[in-house]
């Protein structure tokens, strides 16, 4: 026993010495409420983990400082056939373990993500296979003409084939067969940082990769990431000087943090749009046997007019959100200023519309919301339920954890429900069409919980899916979104803000996709 303790103390001294040594280095300590779930880029579908792993891995194409697509591990590309894209790869790139980056790595990575056991397979659903042309040229074959390949590839990180072979990770882990791989706990990529240690919930440490192929635009030597689930604790840790950055910062605390000396807050609207889906089914679950009042467009319009978005923005979102009239954010292809027109808040008009539709005394319905998914989701829903009730739509509100909320929403148990949509990772408005607006068939309509159905949108969706002419494609998206607005398919609530808080001396650019890109970060 005593020898063990002595060993421990010796170790403690050693670690202490090490800590003293690295104290000179530029270290960024930051926190977010969620943690990396895994280091295996193909074993998850969470955008936070994807954003973290971007520090370790590079994709073939990436989003630049203005979210434009730019070359990363691929230097150029062209379509050789409608369904085949040819990529020229970057030379003299080395993985963290010293292995050179070649076409074999790309083929192995694409093959790995297309494996039936891969969790992230859906992120590259249009791709059929990758073929090596020569050491630095790769062909990617899609299942048909597919306009969004580059967008999809921006989220596909390239792993080292030799390392995967050596660690038995050539195939991804498979939960159903009880297989896990070394890739879950160690990551070897080509990215700007290397993983030094990965302790779920306790913290992940990254150190700078001195041999990164790109010119660093940051001055960090070390990143200490420590997830803190509790909002209050996270803010406390920032204020007590234990952290340099928290992302996101709770909206209600921004003012206080901003007013504290030595701290600052930055914010901008994110890509994520919060909206309410309304039931388009023949009957409401709350009133079986009766016609669904919301099939009447005037009722839908009334429910839109009933919501005081200005108050929501001011009180619930602390003036940090952006109110919107359309279903996609301005940065996303498919956005059109003409569509982005608010329905004015007008309770009298709402009541009048209801009366015209034959519901002068309103009706009863339900609103379902998650309480741990979006920024102030529960609070938003309480306010909306209150506003609807005031025009006579007596709304019973039910909020619950995402773990039960989303499965129930998928099963179509809700009449009206809240959903947030960021069009990630493709960052293209087509996802809104295919998942939210299209009917549930042929692989479309995965999140169309209100059973919205519109022949015009069906047609536009199917056309846009294969349209390679970007201009034409975008106008189809715009048309479809206009139709959605005109028919009140969803009620857009607001564009969520990205709000970060940090100590003075941290300079970091913000991105609407909520990614924390620390390779653009400088600290003093």
């Amino acid at each position, binding site marked *: 026993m005593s020898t063990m303790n002595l060993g421990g103390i010796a170790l403690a001294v050693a670690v202490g010495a090490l800590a003293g040594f690295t104290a000179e280095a530029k270290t960024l300590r930051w926190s977010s409420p969620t943690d990396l779930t895994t280091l295996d880029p193909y074993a998850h579908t969470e955008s936070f983990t994807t954003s973290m792993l971007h520090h370790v891995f590079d994709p073939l194409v990436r989003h630049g400082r203005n979210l434009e697509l730019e070359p990363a591990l691929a230097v150029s590309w062209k379509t050789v056939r409608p369904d085949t894209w040819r990529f020229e790869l970057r030379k003299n790139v080395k993985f963290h373990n010293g292995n050179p980056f070649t076409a074999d790595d790309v083929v192995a990575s694409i093959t790995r993500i297309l494996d039936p056991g891969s969790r992230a397979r859906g992120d590259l659903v249009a791709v059929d296979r990758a073929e090596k042309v020569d050491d630095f040229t790769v062909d990617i074959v899609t299942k048909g003409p597919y306009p969004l390949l580059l967008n999809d590839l921006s989220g596909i990180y390239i792993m080292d084939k030799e390392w995967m072979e050596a660690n038995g990770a050539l195939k991804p882990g498979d939960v159903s067969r009880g297989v896990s791989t070394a890739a879950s706990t160690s990551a070897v990529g080509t990215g700007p940082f290397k993983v030094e240690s990965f302790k779920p919930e306790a913290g992940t440490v990254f150190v700078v990769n001195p041999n990164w192929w790109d010119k660093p635009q940051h001055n960090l030597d070390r990143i200490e990431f420590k997830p803190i689930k509790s*909002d*209050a604790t996270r*803010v*406390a840790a920032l*204020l007590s000087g234990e952290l340099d950055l928290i992302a996101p910062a*709770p909206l*209600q*605390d921004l*003012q*206080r*943090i901003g007013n504290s000396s030595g701290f600052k807050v930055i914010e901008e609207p994110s890509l994520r749009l919060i909206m309410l889906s309304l039931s388009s089914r023949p009957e409401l679950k709350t009133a079986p046997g009766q016609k669904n009042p919301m099939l009447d467009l005037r009722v839908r319009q009334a429910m839109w007019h009933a919501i*005081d978005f200005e*108050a*929501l923005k001011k*009180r*619930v979102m602390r003036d940090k959100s952006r109110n919107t009239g359309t279903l996609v954010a301005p940065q996303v292809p498919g956005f059109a200023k003409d569509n982005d027109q608010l329905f004015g808040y007008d309770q009298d008009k709402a009541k009048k519309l209801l009366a015209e539709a034959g519901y002068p005394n309103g009706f009863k319905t339900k609103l379902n919301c998650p*309480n*741990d998914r979006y920024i102030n989701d*529960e*609070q938003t829903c*309480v*306010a909306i*339920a*209150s*506003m609807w*009730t*005031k025009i006579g739509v*007596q*709304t*019973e*509100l*039910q*909020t*619950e*954890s995402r773990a*039960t909320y989303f499965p*129930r929403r998928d099963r179509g*148990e809700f009449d009206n429900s809240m959903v947030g949509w960021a069009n990630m990772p493709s960052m293209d408005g087509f996802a809104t069409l295919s998942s939210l607006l299209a009917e549930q068939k042929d692989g479309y309509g995965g999140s169309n919980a209100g059973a919205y159905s519109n022949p015009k949108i069906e047609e536009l969706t199917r056309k846009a899916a294969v349209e390679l002419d970007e201009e034409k494609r975008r106008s189809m998206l715009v048309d479809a979104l206009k139709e959605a607005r005109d028919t009140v398919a969803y009620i857009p609530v607001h564009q969520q803000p990205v709000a970060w808080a940090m100590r003075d001396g941290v300079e970091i650019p913000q991105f609407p996709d909520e990614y924390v890109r620390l390779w653009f970060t400088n600290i003093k």
Partner: protein
Amino acid sequence: MKTLTASPGLITRIGAPISVMVAGVVALVMVACALLASRIAPYDPTDLASFDLINAELPPAFSADGDPRFLLGTDNQGRDLLSAMLYGARVSIAIGGGAVLVAATIGVFLGLLAGYYGGKVDAVIMRVADVILSFPTILLALLVSGIARAVLPGAATAEWAPVILICAIAIHEWVQYARTVRAATMVETAKEYVRAGKVIGLPSRRIMLRHILPNVMSPVLVISTINLAAAVLTEATLSFLGVGMPPTYPSLGTLIRIGNEFVFSGIWWIALFPALALVILVVAVNLVGDWLRDRFNPKLRVKR
């Protein structure tokens, strides 16, 4: 003045120290206020149409920029905090009281059976109790409400959530009653008045309910007081973990959970007042419970 002169007599009659008397009065007043919430609260916070987001986060009336309409200010939804607290206390007390009632009923019943019959009946009941005890209250309550929410789609609604919370808390608490009543019943069963009843030939049910039950009730009362306090706290903790009352029908615990998000934002009243109310209520009930326990436990009473 009249009450002042009357109180010493009352105190000596009940024999409670002044602190306990004060606690008792505080607890009674709080319970009364909570029960009469719909009468005395300035607003009805459960009526979604009654509050306005525009009024959100107004400070208490007595502070510099307070609004006289809202004595303790408003919460983040624009609800009058005082009304929300009164209604919240009602919900908390109803859940706590309900849990105590359910737990006591089950526990007393099973405890009587186990203590009276002994043998296999006793063994089975006590084994079940042991297993229940092996799960800490919070965990068990978390599981029960989690499962209930999934089984009953409406479980998180204002009508069902209290029932589920009551069951979730009671499922652990009955064990304590059962154990206490069992022990007391064993003592009583050995006493001669019970043997006398048996010699007369009275049926067991009659002996248990008419003879033994009244004699084992005093510890049940004591446990109930202390458990009421504990149940209110458990409900608050469950609210904190996200399985409490819905936000449209908040309990004190839910209010604290919501207020907890605002501790750094300068909106101190949202967190402070509900927490204060909860702590005062629980302290008062506990104080009375402690005194009752010391009083009913002959061993703790200083012998004459």
